[in-house]
């Protein structure tokens, strides 16, 4: 079952020469029980998508259903089942964390206090401080508690881990996995690609308002190319021979090692190395960031 489904969802700001197509005919499905990563550079349309899903802004055309409900017409009922963390969280600066939580809990019609306490303890959040005195990391934690406190069926998180230290990021990842294991869903936008790689099941890549691809994270990292590093004795003659090989590019030499990018099969490379004494051979899958850059480099899939 799709928890998020958009049909030709489009958002245009301004008109005439000022017209900006922030989101262009987005067709996207996010399934129940998955962690979906939404990737793209600034201005790609990630936050616009999230704001449309939450009815903070209205589409120019197209529609979106979230948890089976129309995102615009049934927004109040829908928001009971959604937890949201905005990219730039702003709260009442004069209120303490506890006061903010109480207000949001009241507006939600009450929450499980034991779970709320467990969350704040896990994230090591001091609720007695005023919001204005929170560090950016603590403010992020408060935002996470606000998003998670009602155990929502769908979590919508815009750049969720900015400002969190590595330990807290680990705890965040654990909470996301628990959410998924409970059959709930997560839709998160991020530019921290290792984070997406670590926790997401699928990822959608957005560019200039258009969805370029949706792919399993595991499959995305397997397609296209690999990085190969060779430690050889007769390094001097090697680069010239390797560059001529089919599928080999970006050959570079550092001391006695050669680094190259290999597309396709290993066989041509291994045959070319027959006359060399290979001390070490390392193969690295490309990081999501490299795949991401490859997408943006030529606008096509790598």
């Amino acid at each position, binding site marked *: 079952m799709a928890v998020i489904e958009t049909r030709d969802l489009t958002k245009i700001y301004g008109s005439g020469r000022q017209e900006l197509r922030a989101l262009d005919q987005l067709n996207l499905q996010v399934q129940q029980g998955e962690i979906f990563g939404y990737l793209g550079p600034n201005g790609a349309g990630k936050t616009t998508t999230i704001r449309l899903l939450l009815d*903070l*802004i209205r589409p120019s055309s197209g529609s979106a259903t979230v948890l089976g409900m129309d995102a615009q017409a049934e*927004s109040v009922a829908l928001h009971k089942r*959604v937890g949201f963390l905005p990219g730039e*969280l702003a709260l009442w600066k004069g209120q303490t964390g506890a006061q903010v939580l109480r207000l*949001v809990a009241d*507006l*939600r019609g009450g929450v499980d206090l034991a779970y709320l306490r467990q969350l704040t303890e896990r994230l090591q959040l001091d609720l007695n401080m005023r919001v204005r005195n929170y560090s950016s990391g603590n403010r992020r934690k408060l935002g996470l508690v606000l998003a998670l406190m009602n155990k929502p069926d769908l979590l*919508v998180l815009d750049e969720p881990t900015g400002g969190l230290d590595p330990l807290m990021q680990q705890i965040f990842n654990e909470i996301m996995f628990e959410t998924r294991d409970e059959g709930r869903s997560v839709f998160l936008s991020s530019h921290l690609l290792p984070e997406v790689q670590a926790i997401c099941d699928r990822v959608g890549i957005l560019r200039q308002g258009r969805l370029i691809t949706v792919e399993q994270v595991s499959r995305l990292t397997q397609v296209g190319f690999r990085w190969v590093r060779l430690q050889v004795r007769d390094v001097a003659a090697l680069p010239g021979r390797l560059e001529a090989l089919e599928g080999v590019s970006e050959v570079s030499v550092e001391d006695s090692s050669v680094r190259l990018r290999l597309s396709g099969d290993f066989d041509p490379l291994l045959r070319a190395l027959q006359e060399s004494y290979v001390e070490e051979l390392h193969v690295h899958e490309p990081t999501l960031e490299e795949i991401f850059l490859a997408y943006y480099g030529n606008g096509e899939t790598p």
Partner: protein
Amino acid sequence: MSGVLLRATLRQHWRPTLYWSAGLALLGLYVIAVIPDQDALDNYVSLVASMPQPILDAIGAGDTLLLRTPEGFIQYGFATWAQLMLAVYGLLAGLNLCANEEEAGILDVLLSLPLSRRRLLLERFIAFALLTLLITLLSALGLVLGSGATEFTLAPAALFATALNLVPGTLLVMAFTALMAAALRRHMLATGIAVFFVIGSYFLDFIASAISEGPLNQLGRLSFYRWSSDGIAPGSFLPTENLALLLGVTLVLLVGALWFFDRRDIGL
């Protein structure tokens, strides 16, 4: 309507409300302290009466006979200035309904909760209407306390009526500001127009009052200050016609604000 946001707004704004109340109560005390007895009042009015009649009309002191009564003097000395101050309060409250939180980005969090935009605006408006009422009641206390130090016997009910008459005009300014913020979205522009409305209305009433008759005088009827002060017998409540007009316009402005706020993008 659950009232959660209404109660939260009352909790968040009790402190500034007390400051405003204290300021207006001090104004009331000061106005009363100027006239400890009839001689002092007569002297003051004689001094004021030396000004040209159009100026007296403009500042609401045209009827010097009325001004020689303590109720008339309080109407002139307290209500005129308190209405101007409360108009500023109404403007700030109007911005606090949604515009300030939208500017700060807090509305993104609020409206991602199970809370409709209409409910948000309405609960906030009701909360600030109650706070306005509280400010005027507490400022009336200043008048009542001050009157104890004079030789006059002033009915507390009359003093409370003088203060409560300030509420409808304040609500109108609040609704006007909310409408501007909802329709224009740009915080600075909405604030600028609301400030122009408050100051412009004051000067319109001021200038139109200086002209005793004719179309220019009638132009003053466009100012909410005119309807907040015209035709009121000192110490009594606003005439029904004035009250109905001020509250009616407030309602129309509020409905307009709700209409725009419900249909537009948030936070851009």
